[in-house]
């Protein structure tokens, strides 16, 4: 019976693992194909089943004028927007989370929990609901097709995540630590920056990672609010897809685009195994 369980367990793990890596392997294989290898039907193993070609990878670094796929600029755009929006969200979100965790607020029937819920509930808002007014608002502000316009929108997407994780985290840091800092001569801001922040690094990292993930993977707002001047990576790749589809360069650029966040998976796992995440996520 025990062996049966064990076999079943490893069978499921193996099957799921295969499912997880299948699209990556397929994309990797496709990225080394050329026109003939793609249109000849599904093949998987280079040299054995098809003659590998580096064309798909070469176009990534070629200039657009020479028929290259220009993903370098969108790449940096994406990094810039994601990091800036995450940073702002973390700073503002952490400050707000600290206030909500430590002080009592009351305005009529509105109390701390209601304010926290207001922050977090922004995740419930379907992007489409905001898209049209955002489109008009950014157009009015002259921020359409502009990185800063996108950053503004991403703050709405990411700050709720930062508040959600940090409120929970601060609730687990004993309040007496901040009080001791006050007694030891810190004003509330010094207490926050000199004592609370240094002791909240795991929470800040987890919140940061989540902001980066959810910023990096957004497509919808980038798709609606930018056109030609600035393009983010996902929009660029999808645009490749809808034009004439050279699968090899599509696959290569897709792999390059998803690569950086796979590093995040390793960091998240480290925190998970150390037990830091269990405290920060709940």
């Amino acid at each position, binding site marked *: 019976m025990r062996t049966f369980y064990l076999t079943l*367990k490893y069978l499921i793990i193996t099957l*799921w693992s295969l499912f997880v890596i299948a*699209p990556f392997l397929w*994309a990797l294989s496709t990225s080394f194909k050329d026109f003939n290898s793609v249109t000849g039907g599904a093949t998987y193993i280079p040299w054995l089943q098809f003659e590998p070609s580096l064309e798909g990878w070469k176009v990534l670094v070629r200039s657009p004028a020479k028929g290259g796929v220009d993903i370098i600029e969108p790449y940096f755009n994406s990094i810039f927007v994601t990091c800036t929006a995450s940073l702002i969200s973390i700073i503002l979100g952490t400050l707000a989370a600290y206030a909500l965790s430590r002080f009592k607020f009351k305005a009529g029937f509105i109390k701390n929990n209601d304010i926290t819920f207001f922050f977090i509930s922004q995740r419930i808002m379907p992007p489409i609901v905001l898209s049209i007014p955002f489109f008009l608002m950014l157009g009015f502000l002259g921020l359409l097709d502009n990185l800063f316009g996108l950053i503004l929108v991403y703050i709405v997407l990411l700050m709720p995540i930062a508040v959600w994780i940090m409120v929970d985290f601060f609730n687990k840091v004993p309040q007496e630590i901040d009080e001791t800092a006050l007694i030891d001569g810190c004003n509330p801001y010094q207490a926050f920056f000199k004592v609370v922040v240094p002791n909240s690094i795991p929470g800040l990292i987890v919140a940061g990672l989540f902001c980066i993930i959810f910023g990096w993977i957004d497509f919808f707002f980038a798709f609606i609010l930018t056109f030609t001047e600035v393009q983010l990576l996902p929009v660029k790749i999808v645009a490749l897809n809808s034009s004439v589809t050279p699968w090899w360069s*599509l696959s290569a650029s897709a792999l390059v685009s998803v690569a950086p966040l796979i590093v995040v998976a390793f960091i998240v796992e480290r925190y998970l195994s150390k037990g830091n995440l269990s405290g920060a996520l709940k």
Partner: protein
Amino acid sequence: MNFNHKFVFLLPGLLVLIGILIFPIVFTVRLSLSSWDSFYPGLDFIGLDNYIRLFTDDKRFWESFFRLSFLSVTTVFLQYIIGFSLALMVWKDIIFKRFFRVLFLIPMMTTPVIMTVIWRTFFHESLGPVNDFFSLFGITPLWLSNNILAKVTVIIVEVWQWTPFMFLLLLAGLLSLPKEPFLAASIDGAGPIRKFIYVTFPLMAPISIGAIIIRLIEASKIMDTVYVLTSGGPGTATETSSYYIFIKGLREFQIGYSAALSFTYLIIMIISLTIISKLLVKLLIKKI
């Protein structure tokens, strides 16, 4: 002592959020009372006409909403079952534990639309590996252009993409469980199945509810995948509410009407998510 420092901490974030959001929300409501479209752009006032049209004469919206409900409930259910199973499997010691944990997390780190572009080639009806496999049995299912199979494909892609998120929340939950109840159950001679039913599952109920609700919220926004994979097709077979509103608003430029759709959709989402959370709490907590 002056206790007003608290506002210095709270207000920057709160005001930025409200500042960015107040205009879009108020404006959506106002737009929904206008007939703004590509021929007559402008904020005229037509009362509740858009809402009347929505409730009496728009089968497509309601169909897209029920399709969305079906898709999100199905995917989240599958994600929960699979995510929980995987989390349980790599919770305790197995070989290559950390390797599998990383591997199982990876899909959620990848950009959905970009992976969907890959999935499109994966499910390609003549050139993709899936049908390469099925051709062994002499069949070539039309993954992207058959009414039912297109839904199945969307579900497969969504499950691939977001099961890791469920897995992450549930594994983090499992790792934070106290050890004592398990010791007690062992002393009482409970086997693994009884331990799961009487100890693990009840202890995980609150975390499960949280994870399911978070995923339902996110799943209710399904749109990117649909846009790239099937563009809502074939016909309207995979059209979700968001995608339908997108078509009305930013493809047909019926701005006023799509604002009414948006606002109604938001209200329905809030109400149904509240009901679902209450139901889940009753269902999972009450049994214990």
